[in-house]
């Protein structure tokens, strides 16, 4: 399996929408 590591996740708002079984990425999420 591939693994998406934390380096590649940096600065994105990573959204775990468990209710709807979706994962979201929002650019410039830390600002």
């Amino acid at each position: 399996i591939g693994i998406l590591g934390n380096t590649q996740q940096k600065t994105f708002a990573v959204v775990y929408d468990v209710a709807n079984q979706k994962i979201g990425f929002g650019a410039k999420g830390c600002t």
Partner: protein
Amino acid sequence: ESSGAPDWHVVSVGSLLPSSICAAATAASNSSALSVVHRHGPCSPLLARVGGAPSHAEILDRDQDRVDSIHHRHRGSGAAPAINPARASKGVSLPAHRGLSLGTGNYIVSVGLGTPRKDFSVVFDTGSDLSWVQCKPCKDCYEQQDPLFDPAQSSTYAAVPCGDPHCRGLDSSTCASGNRCRYEVVYGDQSQTDGNLVRDTLVLGPSDALQGFVFGCGDDDSGLFGKADGLVGLGRAKVSLTSQAAAKYGAGFSYCLPSSSSSAGYLSLGGAAPSNAQFTAMVARSDTPSFYYLDLVAIKVAGRTVSIPAAVLKAPGTVIDSGTVITRLPDTAYRALRSSFAGFMRRYKRAPALSLLDTCYDFTGHRTVQIPSVALVFSGGVTVSLDFSGVLYVSKVSQACLAFASNGDDTS
């Protein structure tokens, strides 16, 4: 490109390395948001170990331990892993369960426990479920940053009895005298925590309280935890913080990891997604129910799709993990990415490999560098163009490496 992202990053070489001074601002935008900082950066509340933070090579070497343990769990090997006899003797009454290696690239959040509240700095981990801190009385605890959590000083503390669903739902638990639920977690790097399963109030942010939070009260702990006071598990099982908090905050959470170890991000339970978020399907697998999977379907470099057979990425699937530092790809995919990236980087001098990173460059003498963008394309067409900090892992100006690695082959 559909994302509208630029195809290149142009970056000042002087900004490649993080500051030695913490530049974190107040992070919480709502009452349940926690500030996230890198465990080994200047914003970390954990005191540096003797000799300072681990080297980049050490961090990356340890990262492979974490990846190996993810693969081990995914394969669902029926054979019990070899346990260090010295460790096994500590948990002799409990079935050892091999969990994830902790890695050293983990991020830290601060939470409050008990009434009155005491604050603790804990690793946050989307790859495991049970949260825990070290507690008094302690049979064998490692040295941590803060005083141990003392249940006797909390008016809201309660033990979890053996018949409780949270106890029965653990991978490794036994019933001890007084109807106490004992848990054990043995991580993939042989780090270990044993203790009582308990309930108490968890305080997130300045004052937001989650009553009756179930967690482990470790009293026999050892391994590679550094000075962290414990761990908060954000996996998919019912005992995870995110599952326990779902009734109050909604079934979801979000975080942002900062671009540098000298700045801060956040971890937030519930709450609205940012308006610019693009969503892809979350995939569940019964053999590894704690993990969050998604479908990576393509990779772009400088806006051009890298030639990778679809099945190479699609068939094995992809786990998203907060505790793995470097993204791992099937070997065919990694080789194609590396070839494409190197083709755009021919103007720069190559540098020696850094641990598992084999595509490195020496930027000495340059004022700015121009780096091709790397975008990950997920099912549904969601294209995530990585931040510059997600493309290169910079150990020093003379050694900046493509921050991806191979899984070794396409099937392992």
